[in-house]
């Protein structure tokens, strides 16, 4: 058992993931690791996250804790590797029906700085920043093995950003992994041990 622990497979392993507008990408993310991707708009950052989440047709293999994606059903994969869109979609007019575990959601709301009353509000009554945090809470409440975050704090003030980053670190400490797209180089430095830069569909390492 101990021997197995030492060569434990990475939480998330991308092996030659590519699509029409994306050159092959290979990245390993260990337990508790966050990797950041920066780059200009339209360079393919979101496309890469969507590829990893298996939301678009593409090529290459992704492994979760050593288990290949091709051996899992699409929805079972996406339940464990959750993609948070930059602009989240909502399938109900009210906030509450988006959460299955009300107690867990309330806890996350509090830690992300959302007033408890927001749970009973309409989605359209929330501000952009509140919606962004509510969407993150929706994903975190499901406790996935890996999170694919697309501009998770784009609409947030510094205080709310700090709360989100604290919550993400707590999530990483649980042994999960995060692949994060951000426009903010300082956030990339704060959160990630390794950084990449996306340029016209090509991913180049920036720092390690």
């Amino acid at each position: 058992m101990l021997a197995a622990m030492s060569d434990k497979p990475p939480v998330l392993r991308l092996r030659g993931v590519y699509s029409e507008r994306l050159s092959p990408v290979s990245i390993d993310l260990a337990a508790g690791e966050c990797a950041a991707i920066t780059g200009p708009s339209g360079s393919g950052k979101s496309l890469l996250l969507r590829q990893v989440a298996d939301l678009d047709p593409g090529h290459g293999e992704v492994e979760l804790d050593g288990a290949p994606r091709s051996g899992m059903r699409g929805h079972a994969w996406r339940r464990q590797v959750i993609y948070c869109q930059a602009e989240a979609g909502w399938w109900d007019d009210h906030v509450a029906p988006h959460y299955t575990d009300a107690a867990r959601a309330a806890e996350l709301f509090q830690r992300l700085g959302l007033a408890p009353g927001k749970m009973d509000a309409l989605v359209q009554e929330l501000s952009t920043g509140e919606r962004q945090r509510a969407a993150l809470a929706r994903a975190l409440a499901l406790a996935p093995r890996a999170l694919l975050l697309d501009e998770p704090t784009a609409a947030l003030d510094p205080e709310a950003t700090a709360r989100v980053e604290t919550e993400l670190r707590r999530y990483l400490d649980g042994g999960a992994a995060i692949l994060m797209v951000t426009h903010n180089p300082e956030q990339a430095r704060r959160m990630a041990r390794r950084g990449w830069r996306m340029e016209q569909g090509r991913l180049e390492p920036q720092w390690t």
Partner: protein
Amino acid sequence: MDVIKLQALDLVIASLLVLLSAGISSALRLNLQRQVLWAALRTVVQLLLVGHILRIVFAHAAPWLTALVVAVMMALAAREVAARPKARLARRGNGQVGAMAVVATTVVTALFILSTALRPEPWYDPRYTIALVGIVLGSVLNAASLALDGVLSGVRRDRLAIEARLSLGATAHQAFASLLRESVRRGIVPSINQMSAAGIITLPGIMTGQIIAGMDPIDAAKYQILLMFLLCGASGMAAMGAAYGAMRRLTDERGRLRLDRLLSER
């Protein structure tokens, strides 16, 4: 039965009403007079043509001829289902979804009635089969095209919501659930309205026809009830078939949303 036979002259006199309608259009500058006259002409030609074809088919009562007429009617209905929605599925998806919904529901409901309530001799008696298929097709066509349009026009609007559900691990079926419900409802509601209004607001065409043809009103009402039930079941099946067929084409084996299979609107 003492049917008053219509003479050609009777129709010519009745056509004065069409001229009246065209006159109104002209007086109010609606610019519809050409369309009114053209539509009236089409009605005359199409109905007389159908009447002559059915006279031949009824006279022969051959199974293959009946099947041919039914097949042509279904093909035209499927084409109409495919053409009504503005959005198009790639690789002739609209046509395939329309054909599947139309053929499956029409065959199932028509055979059901022919083997339970009506039981003509022989069972494919064109007088019953063709009339039945014709009535069913009207409802099926409406229900299927409304449901198909509901999914195709709604999927772009609901893209973010559907992808949000997929991203959180929902199956394609769960992610489409509310769009499917809404679309199937759109398809079924007309036949519910038709059933609730029957006899009070309008006298259904079939019943009116049979009463004019000399049938006892109670017997005519029973026929109409049977047909209403038939249409209700048929439109339910057609709406569901069309909506699910569209969903299957808009998702793939990995449970992804495939909007690339939806061509841009005309």
